[in-house]
Structures are given as structure tokens and as C-alpha cells.
């Protein structure tokens, strides 16, 4: 096969004979691909984003083609990072497109030894039901001193420092309405 590809692509040896690059080290040996090479970003959509790792908040450009990510790199416009990223930020492409990502809801039943798959709908219903049930069982209207506390100590939450402000806002809002107070995240400093 490759023999014909050579003939197809003008035989560099012949190009070499023409003046310019007799040594065959340069242009005469370039392939068509090399001459027409372009970065894969050409014609891709770019979405402005922020690095999800630490709290420096470096700018990221997310390049997308056909609904799939092709590249994530630093945003030159950011006054904080000026286009630069650390190794973690530079690996964001792998973070969001890697095959380590779980795509389905999984459930482990009591004493279970394996995961089983659940539909999102069913899982949401089960979780909502458990929240309601636990809240009923563990509701505390007054503390031991008789002061009203209006809460449940049966449910707790952890996490938030990796989430968006809007998400933390809704979480705290819902928990407060439910009387769930044991809400915590990484930010114990």
C-alpha cells in the first residue's frame, strides 16, 4: 500500500532535484500533512470556564466539537492566571473526559457485596422517602432544657467547597427548611 502512497504524494526525491533543498533535510521532505497541519482547535467552539481544583481560580478555555471536549487549556484573558495552569489544571481534560467517570446511579443494599444499577427516578424517590422517614423519626421540637430547637439530628451533610455558590445556596436553604443543622464542608478554616 505504502508504495502507492509514495507515488501519490510527489516523490520527494524528485522535489529534491529541483533547486531549494538539495540536502533533503527541509521543505523537499515535507509531507502534505505537514504543510497543511493546523491545531485541532480550528473551528471548535470555546467555552469560558474556571479551573475546578484549588481556590486560585485560574481561567480555562474549554474547546468543544460535536458535543465532545477536545482540549482544555488556560485562558490568556484571566488577570489571575494569565493563561497559565498547574499540572492539575492542565489535566482537566482527563478529569472530565476520563473513563473513570461513573455515568449511572448505583445502589448497595444492606449487607450487599456488589453495586446494582438504579434508575435516576427510582433513586431520587428512595432518597426523598428516606429523608422524610428519618426526619419524622428523629424530629426534635425542644431540647432537654425545653427551649424550642425545631430540628433533626438524624440527618447530616458533608461537602461544598468543590461545589458552586448556587449549589451551596440551595443545599443550605433546603436543609434549613428541613431542620437539618449538621451541615459541614471542607472549609473549617
Amino acid at each position, binding site marked *: 500500500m505504502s508504495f502507492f502512497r509514495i507515488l501519490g504524494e510527489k516523490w520527494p526525491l524528485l522535489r529534491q532535484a529541483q533547486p531549494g533543498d538539495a540536502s533533503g533535510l527541509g521543505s523537499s521532505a515535507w509531507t502534505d500533512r505537514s504543510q497543511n497541519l493546523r491545531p485541532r482547535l480550528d473551528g471548535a467552539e470555546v467555552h469560558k470556564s474556571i479551573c475546578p481544583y484549588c481556590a486560585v481560580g485560574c481561567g480555562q478555555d474549554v474547546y468543544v466539537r460535536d458535543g465532545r471536549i477536545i482540549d482544555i487549556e488556560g485562558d490568556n484573558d484571566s488577570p489571575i492566571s494569565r493563561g497559565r495552569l498547574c499540572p492539575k489544571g492542565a*489535566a482537566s481534560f482527563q478529569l472530565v473526559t476520563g473513563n473513570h467517570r461513573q455515568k449511572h446511579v448505583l445502589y448497595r443494599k444492606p449487607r450487599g457485596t456488589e453495586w446494582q444499577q438504579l434508575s435516576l427516578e427510582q433513586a431520587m424517590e428512595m432518597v426523598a422517602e428516606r429523608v422524610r422517614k428519618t426526619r419524622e423519626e428523629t424530629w426534635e421540637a425542644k431540647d432537654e432544657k425545653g427551649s424550642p430547637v425545631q430540628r433533626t439530628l438524624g440527618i*447530616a451533610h458533608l461537602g461544598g467547597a468543590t461545589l458552586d455558590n448556587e449549589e*451551596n445556596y440551595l443545599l443550605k436553604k433546603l436543609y434549613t427548611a428541613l431542620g437539618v443543622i449538621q451541615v459541614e464542608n*471542607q*472549609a473549617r478554616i
Partner: protein
Amino acid sequence: MPGLGISFGRGGATTFVQDLQHSDVIVIQGSNMAECHPVAFQWVMEAKARGAKIVHVDPRFTRTSAMADLHVPIRAGSDIVFLGGIIHYILENDKAFKEYVIPYTNAANIIDPRFRDTEELDGFFSGWRADKGEYDEESWRYQGVEEVPAAGHKEVVPKEGGGGPRGKDVKKAPRDETLQHPRCVYQLLRKHYARYTPEKVEEICGVPPKTFLQVCEWLTQNSGRERTGAFCYAVGWTQHTVGVQYIRSAAIIQMLLGNMGRPGGGIMALRGHASIQGSTDIPTLYNLLPGYIPMAHAKQHSLKDYLDVNTAGGGFWSNFPAYFVSLMKAYFGDAVSKDNQWGYPWLPSVTGDHSHMTTVSDMTQGKIKGYFVMGENPVVGSTNGGMQRDGLAKLEWLVVRDLAMIETAEFWRERPECETEVFFFPAAAHTEKDGSFTNTNRLLQWHHKAVEPPGDCKSELDFVYELGKRLKAAYASSTDPKDKPIQALAWNYREIKPGEVDADAVLEEINGKNLVTGKPLSKYGELKDDGTTAAGCWIYVGCRADGVNQPARRKPQREQDWVAREWGWSWPDNRRMLYNRASADPDGKPWSERKRYVYWNGEKWTGFDTADFIPDRPPSYRPGPDDTGVKAISGIDPFIMQVDGKAWLYAPSGLLDGPMPTHYEPEEGVVPNAMYRQECNPRRLEYHLRRNRYHRAFDDPRYPYVLTTYRLTEHHTAGGMSRWLSWLSELMPEMFCEVSHELAAEVGLKNGGWATVTTARAQIECRVLVTGRMRPLRIQGRTVHQIGLPYHWGSTGLVRGDSTNDLIAFVADPNVQIQESKAFTGNIRPGRREQRYRIEPELAELAEPRDLPGLRPYATQPMQHNPEKE
């Protein structure tokens, strides 16, 4: 961050990383900035290129040290002595920037005659209640005033309410601007730090005087009108039983040197997660509501009690009712009004400490049934992994949301018998959802959705929205009063498509609006306490000013000045540098051309940044004797959140363990406290549980070495976002420890070989790096070896290894309940481990008590858990 909150009024980094380029000296301590925040470190390098001196104080010689002009090896857990030594040097050599200190800090305030210092009481301040094991701060106050409510850190042990706003009379407190009065703050500081001499620094920190004095000289030479210096810290300072006081110490130095609110100055808190600042501003924390508004406390029976306790007589916390009422309107909309106390009775109340470690220890005792974990991996990332796993195993149900199958979701694999139901919900990545992160310098930045989340992956936003809808439906028909708040909860958000909430709609609610005109609010000054405004987080008001998503602004840096005010939006009021009124002298002129930033131009405050002050209040303004609230802020009060408008060298309230930083040894140390007979912070939180054995206070023959933990550039915290990535994992593929050549020889460790590190809680195995970057120190005449342990690894992922946090006990700082993981003790031996968990029986007799006899009765410890029956 009460360390900063108490001192200056707001719990956030006081400056922004780009400003570090203007520093003339930068002290990085309790942080490994080059490794953990490499991109922010570019600004340190800019400063260095301009000739600034870079100092790194750290137990290890790290990649940060490699870039520094001076690396100061220090014993982990001794920083307060080092920083106290600097304070001592400044005060005794009269190096303070007095023109700044006298008007802008409380140096001149005279303190209550009943106040006694730790120097007099051998490690205790006056007001210690041995029966309760806590301080009564009455004797800490300014002389002759009723109360001095703290701004930055709202009361953690709130009192009964009543009597209206507190601290109205603070402005009347006597001041001696000659700083001569024996009980003025300046003199008290001198007394308090009198013994923190270079010799003591050498004795306790292991830092030779020559090195120490070099740091003092660089700092003081770069202070004053023409020059400024900055401090950078991270969890190397906070994760101690005296964590908050570490930061307070740096705050005191920066106040004395006049470095606050000025270019190249300030205290840069370097934080580890994309929105960790946001998650304290809009907290997923037990003790706070959005905007640092305290949760209701059982002691506050009515709205009036609650408002009285939390409203300050002066400064912007005097508008507390407006902030709170607006929040309630955002939460419950029309369902709340003056008649039902704006819904206050619906709010759940705290009754003390409900923090992470307390929750988990309750969990291990079966007190908690359901647990949500979102974007966090406590089994690896939290201390005492064994306890964490025990706790999870005692739950009825656990919901984990993450990108990958993290250890917390799979803890049951080694406990097949456990009854816990586990739900794993796949999360959407940052590229699959709109939303804002608040970075380490309080800057909100919007990230745009680039692609659809795959499969069942959902954002937390959509998850919690859906859960809320289902619960509202479930309770819709209830008549039980306890379900009223759920029924009343405002829970209708614009959807982009069914089930997908428009994050921008939530940001609109956070920013708030005028309920009469329906217009978005543009600054928190517009908030009202009459129910005509709603705002989900008062400090974020303005982030959607004019209906524009300000955090999404992306004017390129090339097209604006170095402050780049048109990139994103930072709270409060888009101020990039806090307290910047202090960048001008009392008359409102820049201290110097070189350090010009914000100044008074004759009719208003102007400059590079939004002035952190009342825009049109002249420097000459002085409040009348009876003025309160915002009126009480004088033209020379740069710290407008503080009740007295001053930065607090001395904290008359708000901190549970004392008004001034004082050296205490870690819970587990290697030497006795050379300053006081009281060994450890008397107010620290202990957890006496079977799985949480403590070593001896010091001299524990079983655990002779100091252990300290840290992160690497190549991984992220508990590894959930890095250990699955081949491009990162190959760079740091295995768990390891770092030891000095001397220790390696002493114990017989080989570079590249295996070692087992042991504490009373667990033992872990790791590879060994023998390196000259670790060096033994001479402390109180003995050789102290320190062992470095990164903590990224766990039992799942592409690269696996033991988790360092399994080694660490639950023990916490009283102010913020943060764990002590940067200084504890353990042992090390060559070879691999056998079993993983250990429950080492406590030694019959403790060599030395951690507390003075009778002063911290074991059984009556507050927030302390009684030993389990065994």
C-alpha cells in the same frame, strides 16, 4: 476564618494574589505556595524579580523553599513562638508604624483592670471557668464599656438576648494615644510577648537567632510609608488546636507594621478548593447562614433575642436586622412577615458544636441515620479514617455524589456485613454546568456549561432542586407545624429545560431584589429590615447589579489595569483589596506615591479600587457622642465592619481561647511547653473515644517523632480528582514519607524502600524518600526528628496507597473545630505493615497532664464525648 474576621472584620483573604507583585517582602509560612498554588505563585516570582525578599518558614525544604531567599526550618506546632518573637522584636525595638497603628488599630484602647494575662496565670487568661472549661470574656473588655461584640466571628457561645444592640458605647471607651498607659493594648502586648525572645524562639522552634533576626529585619525594613510586606498562609497554620491564634499572630504583625489595606501588604489566605471561600460565604456550615449570619441558637427564644445578640452598636453589623430579614424573604418569600417574626421560629437552632468531627463521633455511636456526602471524600480526606469508616457503617443510609468511585462510596467493601444502604449519584463536572466559584481572594467567577452531562450525571443544583420538589410534594398536605417551613420554602426557579435549573436564576436570588420595584439590588447598603428587600446573601448583593451577571464578566487583563475590576466580581461591593481606606493616611492622602491605592480627592474616595469605606465620608468626619451604627464610623476608621472601626491587635471578644495568641504545644508533642506550665490550649476540643486514643502530651516512648502532613502539586487533597488521572498519577504514583538522612540512619530506612508509620490509631505503609530537605532540629537540648507525610492516597483509583489521615486523632481548635493534622506524633520502622487499624490502650499514667491539675476537669469538658463503654 475568624483569625482574620476577628482582627479586621471579615473572614476572607484581605488582598488578591495579583497584588503580591507589589510586596517588598513576602513571608510564606504554614503554606507551601509554590507546590499547592503554583499559578498564584507567579505573583510572588514577580515580586522577587522586582527585588522583594522571599522567606519560607516550614518544617520541610519544599519547592517553595527552593525559590525563597531564605528557608527557615521550624518545628511543626511552634509557629506562635516564632511570630510572637517577631512581635516582641517590633515592640522592643520600636519598629511599629505608629502613624498607622495609633489611629487605625485598638493599640490605644485601655483594657478592663480585672484582666490578667497568661504570663501571670501560667498559661491561662483571666475569666477561666474550671467547672465549664471555658472562658468568661467579661474581664477582656475595653475599660468601662458594657460589651465589645466581635464582627468577623459572630458569637460561638451566644448569650441570652435582650437589651438591644450591643456595643453602642464602645466609641466612648478610653484611649491613650501616647500608648503609655500600663493597661493600654500596646503595653499589654509588650508584657504578653516579653518572654518571646530570640533565645526562646531558638529553644522552642529550633530556629537559630541569626536566622530569626534576619526575618525580623527584612520585615521591619520593609514597613512604613514607602514599603510593605505580605504574609501568605494556608492550612499549615489553621490545622492546629490553636489554629485561629496562628493567624491572629500574623494579623498583629501586619497591624503593627502598617501593612493592612495597602498594596503589597495584607494577609493572603491560600485555600485548597475551587469554591471553599464561597462555601463559607454561602455556607454549607452548621453555625452560619449566608453572609456570616449566625444560625439561631436555642438560647435565643424570639427574633428580638436573636437580633439583639447579633446586632452591633457600630459598624456595618449594625444593619444586621436588614441582612437577616432580607435573607428570610429570599428563603420564604411572602410566607414571612413582621407578624410571624419573619419566620424566625421556623429556623432550626444549634445548641453547641455540630461540626464534622462531632457529627462523625455521633455517627460512630449510631446517633445519625442519614448522611449526604457531595464532592468530598472524608474516608481519605478527614482525620481518623478508621472512625470515619466506622461512622458510615453505622448509618441507615448514605448518599454519595462524585465523579468517580471514591473510597467514601466503597467503604463497605471491607465491611460486607454493614447494614448501610449506599446510593451513588454520578455528578456533573464543572464543564457540564453553569455556576460560580468564589476563589481565594473573594472573587466570584462564572464557569459556563460546555457540554451536556453524560448518562445520569447531574449537577448538585439539579439534584437538590429535584429533592426539594419531591419533599415539598411529600409534605404538601401536612398540618404538622414542623412542616410549615418546607411548605413555605420558596422553591421555584427558572428552568433551562425540564429538571435543569438556570443557575443564573439562583444567583439572582442571592443578589436579591427590591420587592417593591422588582429591580435587582446593586449594593448591600440598599437592604431594608422592613421586608421590602430580599437577598440570599447580603455580602453578595451587587453580583447581579443592573441584572448583569457580574461574575461572568471577562474583560481581558491586557485591557485594564492590574486590579482588573472588570474581571468577575468580588465581595463586598466588588472590592479587590479589603480595608483599603488604610492605604491612605488619616488625612486621606496616600502614605506614599509608591504605595498609592485609594485616597480622598476632596469630595470622595477614589483610586484603583472600590473604596472599602463610605464613599463620601471625609477623613475629617468624627461621629457625635451618641451616634451609633454606620454614623459611628469616623473618617479614620478603616475597618468598617468592626464595632469600633479599628483593627484588633487585642481581641476583647469573639475568640474562645484568649484575646492574644499564646503558645501551647500540640495535643501530641515531643517537648514540654517551655512557656507555661499549661501544656496545651486549655480550650481545645477532645474526643475521648475507643477509636481515638491520644498519645502522651510529650515524651511518649512509643511515639518519639513529630509527624506533619501535606499536599503535593501533582495531586489534589483526598485524590478524588487526581488519583484517577494517568497524567497526574504517573508523576506521583505511590504514597511515600520524607525523612532526614539522620533519621534514616537511626531507624534503618532505605531510600526507595518500604516503611511503616504508626500511631495509636492506625498504621500505614509507604515508600521512603531519604532527603536532605528534612533536617533534625535541636529543641530544648534534644534532637527532634520530623517526618513528612502527603495524604492523597486511598484504596481506589488508578494509583493506590494507604491514607495518612488514618493516623490522626480527632482533636480540634475551639473556635472553628478544625482538626490538628499538621503536628502530631508517631513512630516509624522499616518494612511493610501487618494490620491497618490499631487501638493502642492508653498508658496507665500520662507522663505529664496536658492541663494544670483541676483546671480542666475531664468529665465536664464542653463539647466533649464521654468514653464509650468497652
